[in-house]
């Protein structure tokens, strides 16, 4: 059962990065769009994510619940030592979720929009940035549970070049996912505009990815040997790079679904390479006493019921979610045909 739970944990994290990430990306793209094109971007985005945007963020909650029910020690260690970036991320989540609704549901469209929009845009940037920092700090052995002073215990655990560069990389991934997603949604005359954007985000992702390696080198984190030292990890990274190249050539063709699948595949491979190399350890500590999904799992009974709850839950959720996406995709195509 423990493996069922781990698969669910991994999948919800992946889906959160993909769906939630595309969602954050929408705001990030708006930031990097000139004022004149903003409303076009915004409208296309809203049509694309409106119906499912709430569900996109549920994956994070599922992941957290799995952590605290199944792996309480991991959940609490991260909560204690990464308190500050977690709070920053939460503030981002609050600001963004509410600003999204406010700007779309305010009955009067007036100057208040000038308040909501920047909040939405900047929190779209901040939230994935801190998410990346949190993820990077957990896996890079910077958490020092023996630290005696405030700074080494609660600040340097996450405020270092490596974590920050992964934060930036996460932001670029979100922007990338959003542009790929939007291409399929855009009306014909806007397509070239969005294709140009997609191209630029792909360059950005590659640049930020390189940055992560530089930062890892600087912080003495053996990132390269983690990823390239392992056949599976290496395969995953190669697959990710190939799919990026294929995508580059596919951008011009009208194959939005294929593009999205490739983008999803690519991110899945990156996540795989990042997590596989030290599986089952998930939180690496400075003193080497790593927290592992296998040795730090909860008692068997708790894991079993959690596993069943997840299985039963997915029987209800997945078909409904699939149908939701399907219906609105269908309607969209019908409308466009008219």
């Amino acid at each position: 059962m423990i493996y069922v739970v781990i698969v669910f944990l991994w999948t919800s994290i992946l889906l959160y990065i993909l769906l939630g990430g595309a969602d954050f990306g929408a705001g990030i793209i708006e930031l990097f769009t000139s004022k004149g094109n903003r409303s076009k971007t915004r409208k296309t985005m809203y049509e694309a994510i409106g119906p499912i945007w709430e569900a996109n963020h549920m994956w994070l909650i599922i992941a957290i619940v799995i952590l605290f029910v199944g792996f309480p020690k991991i959940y609490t260690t991260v909560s204690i030592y990464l308190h500050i970036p977690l709070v920053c991320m939460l503030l981002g989540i609050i600001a963004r979720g509410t600003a999204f609704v406010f700007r779309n549901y305010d009955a009067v469209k007036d100057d208040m929009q000038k308040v909501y929009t920047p909040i939405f845009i900047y929190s779209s940037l901040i939230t994935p940035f801190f998410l990346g920092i949190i993820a990077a700090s957990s896996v890079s052995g910077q958490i020092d549970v023996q630290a005696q002073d405030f700074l080494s215990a609660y600040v340097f655990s996450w405020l270092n070049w490596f974590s920050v560069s992964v934060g930036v990389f996460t932001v670029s991934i979100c922007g990338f996912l959003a542009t790929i997603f939007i291409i399929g949604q855009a009306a014909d005359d806007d397509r070239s505009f969005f294709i140009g954007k997609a191209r630029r985000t792909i360059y950005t992702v590659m640049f930020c990815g390189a940055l992560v390696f530089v930062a890892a080198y600087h912080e003495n984190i053996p990132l390269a040997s983690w990823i390239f030292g392992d056949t599976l990890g290496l395969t995953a990274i190669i697959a990710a790079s190939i799919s990026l190249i294929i995508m580059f050539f596919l951008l011009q063709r009208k194959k939005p679904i294929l593009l999205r699948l490739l983008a999803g595949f690519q991110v899945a491979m990156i996540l795989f390479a990042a997590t596989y190399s030290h599986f089952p350890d998930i939180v690496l500590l400075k003193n080497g006493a790593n927290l592992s999904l296998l040795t730090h799992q909860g008692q068997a009974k708790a894991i079993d019921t959690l596993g069943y709850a997840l299985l039963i839950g997915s029987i209800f959720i997945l078909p409904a979610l699939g149908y939701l996406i399907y219906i609105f995709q269908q309607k969209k195509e019908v409308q466009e045909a008219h």
Partner: protein
Amino acid sequence: MDDFLAARLQMAFSLGFHIVFACIGMVMPFFMSVAHFYWLKTKKVVYKDVTKAWSKGVAIFFATGAVSGTVLSFELGLLWPTFMEHAGPIFGMPFSLEGTAFFIEAIALGFYLYGWDKLNPWFHWVTGVVVGISGLLSGILVVAANAWMNSPAGFDFVDGKYLNIDPIKAMFNDAWFSQALHMSVAAFVSTGFAVAGVHALMILRGKNVLFHSKAFKIAAVFGTVAACLQPISGDISAKDVAHRQPAKLAAMEAHFHTERNAPLIIGGIPDTANKKVDYAIKIPGLLSFMTTGNFSGEVKGLDVIPKEDQPPVAVTHYAFQIMVGLGMAMVFIALLYFIALWKKRQWLNSNWLLKLFIIATPMGFIALEAGWTVTEVGRQPWIINGVMRTVDAATPMPGIAYSFYLFTGVYISLAIIVSLLLYRQITMVGKLYDSTSKLPKN
């Protein structure tokens, strides 16, 4: 401010904030579905207008409820890591099921909000009902988790270790039923009275009267019926508390001495130093009767509880008085409303009845917050009743006071913006929603 106090206050503020949105998110979909049902049945366009206006409100509240809930699921670890480390696997069952319920709610809401004119009308209606049912379920589940903190079950506590975990037993602990029932009814009372009050105000101002009257009636009927059920459910809760947490009951009642034929103490100022209550109304024997079913039954007082295990008396007592007092006031309004519906239809058009409802607008939510204060403060100094102390659960990280100020600021600004948004939704009814109205905009 000391870190421990800050952590408690931050938790209390976050929950107190979330609960308002959660309740509205649980109950509004039912109001909406009733209005929607009338629209589908009668084809009177005003019902469609009401449904649409309400669904906007639901969307705003849902999103705010969802983000504040997300914050909570992190805060449990950020503020109370020791608690979560041990409690997580035990009381996690309702939370993992709750995840499913939320998810279904979010999906159904997606269908509902974006499904007008796209889905089969009855399928569309059903998705609205599903939003309500899954919201209610998530409320019940999360309260079952809270009930576990009051009435820990499903593990053996041996030498400071939590052994033989049984999450199912933990979920169906002794307190879950009485708390879940009381909470669900409370959600209907508070939302019903709040919504009815707002529409009553608009009727009184003569704006879009047909629209607001229909809306008022749906909300008022839900709220008043629930208000009459609440004392019954509260009585079940009180008996339950007396049995499982005598310290909490004693604090609620400011009952210092164990005695037979114990009086029910209403109001008054508890004097902890001298162990008495000043200026209170005392009804002899009633407390014994209410908790044991017998006027001469024995009720435990604070004197049998060791000093270090006593909850704060004054806060618990006042909060309890506020909840019950407001509950009774709402029962009174409910009875007047029923008389008006069945016997004196002319009252329905009279201003004083509307005014009563306007005054009652915040009552349900105040009672709700007060009730949670009773439960949570009355459990102190325990975070898991009799097992773990709240002090021992708190995070080692210093400087929580700053995080408390930060979140308080955020919550206050959100509350202001949400109020502004609602105010605008309501004042724009004539322009946006009420297709029967010929009134020019304000």
